[in-house]
């Protein structure tokens, strides 16, 4: 019967016509069945194709993840594929934490699949079957362990580029495994090693709930393998794990995998936790102090500062130097002016000098106390952070304009008016002098970062009393010239006598303040973009209007209620835009240029691993030294030519707004401020830290050394 024959033949025909087998045989080994599978019935040329090794564990037996934990070994693959084809590494699905006695291992049990992506070249011969071979090695354990291995093969036809072959029988298992791979996130992770415990603070949108959450480190021997503590805090997740007993050196980056198991559903995320600070996590075995003294050298401020005494001296000197800085100069001039007015009364001058000293010291100590409190709270902030807040930058710009306007004669600052900004720096008497000192320290902060980086970095890694002492020394240094001036009558006598010139001088002194305001607005623009800056500029116009209006009112004998209300409304108008600064702030774009790329710890790590020479420049828009260096030494033809010729990679980190990764990188070099220039030599080796004031010759010499692969000064370099 033909119909009978057909029913018999059709399935047979079907079998014959089926593509050359998408499955290889299951290989049975001790306690584990393995099978090499593909997701589709054919391999598609010109794209990546998913394959995988199915693992079917006997009950209670397990194999291991990339980091095996306390014992065990990760499963390893060796592929044999046709020339031009590439098989990737195992794209690990989420592991389980397996407890054996009091030991913890990371791995897989039950039915699992380890996916691998295989790139098939576009010119692979279409239609012909291709055999891929895999040699797999693993360790399978219950409590006892057995090493296992298998030679596996799969033969599949190659389909034309763009074609969509059907799913294989293994497709669901492969899909499950792929769905269990950790997804990349842009969450941030701040690592804080304290003693033998490691704290990790996760921040970001869409963090999972902590219920059923577990965390694994890809790098072995960093975190201990017992379950860490995981807790939710107000805006993120806190993880605290013991440090591994076999911890030796911190990885440049800790790769964390978060896994959440919820009623059979497994979800996983990957978070990169940069670990820049070597000093913070001294290796178990190293002698105390070694880790702290090996980094940083040759900076303008003396590099790594070893002793408390030296740090105090440097801070004092740095404070004195600050007086010459453009951001302090206007305030200093104001004070000199008021001293000149007091020159006929030495006692008052001395009192003012001491009050100024107290103000400067109080200001620095208060800032240090805030900084230390924040440091304690685990915030990764660095010196100069005041200028990383757009709101504070805008307020400082307002203050500069308001003070400038007063100097220009737009209005008179009187103690009567009692408004904060106005009673600060001008006027006479002890209180005014104290606040001038306070103000000097506030506006000095952008200048302290470049000059006092090493000393401040040192202070921040020290105990609280030492840190406070260093900051206090900085304040003393800042106030020193004024104190000297007020105590030594000879010098005071050199000050010009009060007279009509003072009004002119006062008016001239307004201009540095306006220029400072321009600079601050420019910094603001770099931070929050043009829209928010325009709002702030509008606010400044309203402020000028308010103050001039107020100035005109001062000429009358009694201000009317109406005028007072109008003044208040104008001030309100002036400050209203500040409320929208944050919401209008544009996302900072880290655009790469031809010569440089944006710094990220990952990028630096990749380049270092590839052994390429790297020049790292940590900068900020509000850092004048940084900008001067870029102008003088980092934008010349010679510099870019050297980079091109020697294949040196240039990474630039922008610290204009707060950036935790950069803060940690700076801390790794015992710095808490920018600029920082680091040159990594070719083929690895100790990085060289350049001084904070660059010259073209100095940069060129350092780059030449790095390109030659020598990290040490020229004399130890072997001649070719």
């Amino acid at each position: 019967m033909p119909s009978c024959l057909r029913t018999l033949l059709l399935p047979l025909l079907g079998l014959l016509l089926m593509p050359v087998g998408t499955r290889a045989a299951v290989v049975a080994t001790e306690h584990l069945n393995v099978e090499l599978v593909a997701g589709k019935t054919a391999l598609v040329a010109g794209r990546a194709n998913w394959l995988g090794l199915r693992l079917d564990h006997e009950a209670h037996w397990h194999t291991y993840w990339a980091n095996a934990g306390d014992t065990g070994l990760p499963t390893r693959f060796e592929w044999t594929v046709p020339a031009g084809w590439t098989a990737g590494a195992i794209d690990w699905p989420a592991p389980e934490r397996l407890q054996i006695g009091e030991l913890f291992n990371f791995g897989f049990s039950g039915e699992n699949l380890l996916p691998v992506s295989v790139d098939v070249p576009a010119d692979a011969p279409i239609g012909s079957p291709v055999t891929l071979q895999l040699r797999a090695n693993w360790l399978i354990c219950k409590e006892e362990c057995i090493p296992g291995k298998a030679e596996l093969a799969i033969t599949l036809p190659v389909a034309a580029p763009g074609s969509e072959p059907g799913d294989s029988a293994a497709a669901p298992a492969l899909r499950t495994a792929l769905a269990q791979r950790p997804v990349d996130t842009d969450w941030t992770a701040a690592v804080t090693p304290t003693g033998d415990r490691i704290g990790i603070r996760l921040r970001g949108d869409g963090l999972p709930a902590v219920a059923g959450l577990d965390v694994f480190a890809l790098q072995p021997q960093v975190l201990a393998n017992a379950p860490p503590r995981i807790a939710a805090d107000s805006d993120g997740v806190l993880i605290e794990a013991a440090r591994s007993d076999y911890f030796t050196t911190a990885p440049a980056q800790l790769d964390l995998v978060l896994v959440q198991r919820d009623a059979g559903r497994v979800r996983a995320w990957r978070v990169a936790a940069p670990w820049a600070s070597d000093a913070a996590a001294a290796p178990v075995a190293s002698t105390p102090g070694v880790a702290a003294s090996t980094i940083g050298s040759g900076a303008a401020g003396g590099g790594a500062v070893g002793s408390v005494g030296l740090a105090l001296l440097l801070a004092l000197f740095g404070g004195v130097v600050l007086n010459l800085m453009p951001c302090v100069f206007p305030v200093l001039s104001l004070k000199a002016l008021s001293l000149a007015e007091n020159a006929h009364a030495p006692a008052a001058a001395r009192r003012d000098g001491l009050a100024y000293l107290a103000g400067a010291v109080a200001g620095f100590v208060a800032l240090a106390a805030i900084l230390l409190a924040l440091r304690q709270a685990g915030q990764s902030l660095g010196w100069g952070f005041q200028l990383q807040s757009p709101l504070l930058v805008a307020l400082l710009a307002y203050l500069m304009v308001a003070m400038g306007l007063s100097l220009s004669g737009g209005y008179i600052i009187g103690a009567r008016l009692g408004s904060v900004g106005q009673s600060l720096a001008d006027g006479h008497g002890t209180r005014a002098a104290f606040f001038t000192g306070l103000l000097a320290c506030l506006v000095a902060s952008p200048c302290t970062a470049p000059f006092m980086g090493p000393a401040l970095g040192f202070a921040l890694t020290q105990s609280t009393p030492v840190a406070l002492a260093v900051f206090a020394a900085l304040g003393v240094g800042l106030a020193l010239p004024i104190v000297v001036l007020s105590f030594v009558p000879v010098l005071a006598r050199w000050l010009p006598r009060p007279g009509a010139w003072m009004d002119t001088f006062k008016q001239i002194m307004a201009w540095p303040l306006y220029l400072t305001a321009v600079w601050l607005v420019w910094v603001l623009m770099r931070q929050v973009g043009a829209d928010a800056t325009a709002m702030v500029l509008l606010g400044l116009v309203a402020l000028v209007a308010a103050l001039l209006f107020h100035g005109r009112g001062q000429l009358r004998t009694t201000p009317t209620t109406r005028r007072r209300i109008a003044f208040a409304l104008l001030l309100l108008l002036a400050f209203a835009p500040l409320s929208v600064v944050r919401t209008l702030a544009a996302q900072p774009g880290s655009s790469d240029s031809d010569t440089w790329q944006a710094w990220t710890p990952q990028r630096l790590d990749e380049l270092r691993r590839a052994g390429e020479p790297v020049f790292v420049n940590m900068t900020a828009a509000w850092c004048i030294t940084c900008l001067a260096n870029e102008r003088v030494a980092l934008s010349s033809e010679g510099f870019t030519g050297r980079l091109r010729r020697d294949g040196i990679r240039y990474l630039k980190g922008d610290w204009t707004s707060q950036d935790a990764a950069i803060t940690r990188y700076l801390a790794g070099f015992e710095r808490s401020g920018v600029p920082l220039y680091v040159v990594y030599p070719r083929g690895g080796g100790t990085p060289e830290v350049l001084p904070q004031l660059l010259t073209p010759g100095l940069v060129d010499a350092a780059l030449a050394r790095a390109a030659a692969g020598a990290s040490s000064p020229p004399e130890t370099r072997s001649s070719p």
Partner: protein
Amino acid sequence: MKLLSSLLAAAVLSVAATPLMAKVEIGQPAPSFSLTDSNGKTRTLEEFKGKTVVLEWTNAECPFVKKHYGSGNMQAQQKEATGAGVVWLAINSGAPGKQGQVEGGDANEQMQIDRSAPTAYLLDPTGTTGRAYGASTTPHMYVIDGQGVLRYKGGIDSIQSADAVDIPKATQYVRQALAELSAGKPVSVPVSPPYGCSVKYAAQ
């Protein structure tokens, strides 16, 4: 408010769990012990004062131990060390009934089969000594100097595998540490990750 809650969370987290396994630190005195050897004799760490002591956690049925005994690597190092006046103690912390756990007689038999030559084979069926050292794998190695101070802890060598072909390529950390100690030099690699099977401790 945010600051406060962060501080609170940190405080909550800092109440650390007490680990089941103790830990030993390089440069610190090694925990003392008193164990019965395969011949029924009580041995203590104190009796070897003045001599360098090597501790080797072992389990003859573990593939990683087999790697180093099957190739002769472990026995060679034992002979080298004892020949130079070093005390070498093999310790089995397996609980009764677990794979690889031995009684005194079996231990002597195993040593004959392996032609191994430690100074003594110590039995730690309760796991007290293993836990005091934080021994997690077999093999897991420790070197203690004549003053009783721990100088090395970790793996027998630098390549984590169960395959004997890797031995010639690997740095033998214990051999290196013993050579450096006898030369009066600091141990250049005092810590390495231990690798192997898990020590089959008795439930606690």
